[in-house]
């Protein structure tokens, strides 16, 4: 069935109807594509230190990403999903979280994972096909990448329930894609988050594509933020390539959640600049013009221009940063390369806390023991 144009499908009430409920979905943007402020920015946006630190994180992620793709091409990494172009929202929500908060996430959230403290080596290890890459040394309570789409949303709800039951001022944050927003797990999660008023924030990373399916064939809704209305929670759409909106709106939602105000859906409109993964060839289904147009909205360039316009960032700063990031990434790659391979015994040793006696012969058999 062909694409159906997005239109106003909602039938207006007739004369005899009264209105049972009314809703608005707000949209937030501070920094437009040309790096001009279109609204009065929040305080932190005037702080060069904060803005530069966000920029540094976004840059590290971008540089790591390019390296990871290169590693995959030379067989040193498995299938890898690029996050290029999505750094603003990733760093935006991660930087709005506190260390004690917890995150459940998809496979394309390297920018947020890095901010949270997952190391470059851990990322390489995971994408290199080694479970030890998910044994994060720092965000110990963050969930590893969930590959089955939207299946991490219920986990966030469970974590938020734990926080609420223990009366801890902590928040669960769940990142998921536009494709994921069509899945029942997502809906059941926002519904429960709403009715139990849970401290959880759902960040819908609307990058325009779910592999080859464009956003407008995914759902007929005007926004993805309005999915929130089905859960009785607030929903807001933002320019996901505007780091100021990303950090600010996520902070508002997380703060509200932390203070007992319940859940929120934040839809961040961004763009998947690369192929879906290194196993994909987007040229089969996506016109190149769309990608070049999207590069004009690049969150990294936008923030760099914002910094430069304010004389907070020079060409030298940029060169230094890039050199520094490359060095970090190369060091991580070197460490990754020399890590000993996983042991076959690991297949059994983490299956249960203690391997049941009935399975011990299999461990022996598979470890040649």
């Amino acid at each position, binding site marked *: 069935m062909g694409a159906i144009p997005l239109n106003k499908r909602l039938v207006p009430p007739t004369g005899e109807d009264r209105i049972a409920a009314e809703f608005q979905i707000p949209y937030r943007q501070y920094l437009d594509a040309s790096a001009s402020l279109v609204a009065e920015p929040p305080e932190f946006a005037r702080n060069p230190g904060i803005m530069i630190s966000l920029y540094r994180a976004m840059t590290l992620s971008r540089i790591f990403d390019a390296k990871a793709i290169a590693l995959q091409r030379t067989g040193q990494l498995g299938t890898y999903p690029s996050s290029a172009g999505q750094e603003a929202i990733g760093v935006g929500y991660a930087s709005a979280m506190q260390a004690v908060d917890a995150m459940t996430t998809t496979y394309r959230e390297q920018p947020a994972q890095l901010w949270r403290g997952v190391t470059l080596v851990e990322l390489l290890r995971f994408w290199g096909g080694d*479970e030890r890459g998910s044994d*994060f040394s720092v965000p*110990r*309570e963050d969930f*590893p990448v969930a590959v089955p789409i939207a299946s991490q949303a219920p986990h966030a*709800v469970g974590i938020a329930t734990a926080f609420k039951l223990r009366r801890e001022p902590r928040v669960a944050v769940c990142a998921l894609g536009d494709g994921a927003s069509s899945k029942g797990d997502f809906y059941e999660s926002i519904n429960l988050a709403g009715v139990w008023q849970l401290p959880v924030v759902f960040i819908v990373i609307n990058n325009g594509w779910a592999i080859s399916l464009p956003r407008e064939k995914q759902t007929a809704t005007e926004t993805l933020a309005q999915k929130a209305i089905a859960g009785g929670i607030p929903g807001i759409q933002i320019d996901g390539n505007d780091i100021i909106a990303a950090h600010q709106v996520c902070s508002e939602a997380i703060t509200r959640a932390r203070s007992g105000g319940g859940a929120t859906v934040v839809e961040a409109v961004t763009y998947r600049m690369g192929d879906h993964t290194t196993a994909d060839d987007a040229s089969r289904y996506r016109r190149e013009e769309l990608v070049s147009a999207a590069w004009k909205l690049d969150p990294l360039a936008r923030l760099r221009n914002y910094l430069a316009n304010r004389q907070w960032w020079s060409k030298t700063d940029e060169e230094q940063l890039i050199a520094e990031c490359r060095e970090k990434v190369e060091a991580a790659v070197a460490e990754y390369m020399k890590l000993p391979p996983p042991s076959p015994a690991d297949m059994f040793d983490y*299956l249960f*806390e203690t391997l049941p006696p009935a399975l011990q012969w299999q461990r022996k058999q598979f470890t040649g023991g």
Partner: protein
Amino acid sequence: MSEVSMLGAINMAMARALEDDPRVVLLGEDIGVNGGVFRATDGLQDRFGEDRVMDTPLAETVLAGMSVGLAAQGFRPVTEFQFMGFIYPGLDQVINHVGRLRNRTRGRLSCPLVFRAPTGAGIHAPEHHSESTEALFAHIPGIRVVIPSSPSRAYGLLLSAIHDPDPVMFFEPTRLYRASKEEVEDSGEGLPLDVCFTLREGSDVTIVTWGACVKETLSAATQLAGEGISAEVIDLATISPIDFDSILASVEKTGRLVIVHEAPRNCGVGAEIAARVAERGLLFLQAPVERVTAPDAVVPLLRLEKTYMPGEKQIVDAARRVVRYA
């Protein structure tokens, strides 16, 4: 000590776990004020409050998935699915997350939860209320599957399942819920998982079964005894992983094996037991293995459910056949 039904014992075990361990919480549809559709959680919300015994909306996918989140956070969720036929929307979570979280994170996170669900036919319930699909769960790595067959084993096994640091699927035969009463001491002591229970010693034939079929199997053994056939009855109890060493020892002694289960035959758990005997106990066998099971058909509505379920007669017949085999 008090005389309790299996339902009473299950209720007692959950109460005890709630009492002893602040990490234990119960979740499920209608488990609060209503005490569950079978009353397994009767009185528990009253006693332990709405923070420990939580009524959830009607949504099994999030019910399963949020239990994973709670468990990873150090809680011990005991989650009721109203019937085995309604746990399937949660299967994605069971297969893709419950059994994998510890392994996937190399031990950083774990998933100590119990999923409870009533199982089996024979109570004249509507469609989908008579499932015996334990084999689906037994095939999934990283989880345990347990089915009790008496009030005291229900009490002890459920407590152990709750205490266990790893996920356990705990399926309760509805046909036994109120079938009989037994003295069960509320000792807080669990029964060991991963081992089967020999309910009756015998020398001529080993009959392995679990859940509600234990009832007909024990009656069959009594009848067989009257005919001079001495049947050893083993309750598998932990369906996965299987305590096969104990079964093998029994088959070594009796030389004959009958397996009884209510689930469809094809790829049921009985197949695994028979297969292992074919691998490791071939020389012990003095007769072919027999399986007494439901057919490979959909559980019928109530008018035909008795025809569908394996009965005492079929068990007796099978035991006779293997004993008389020559």
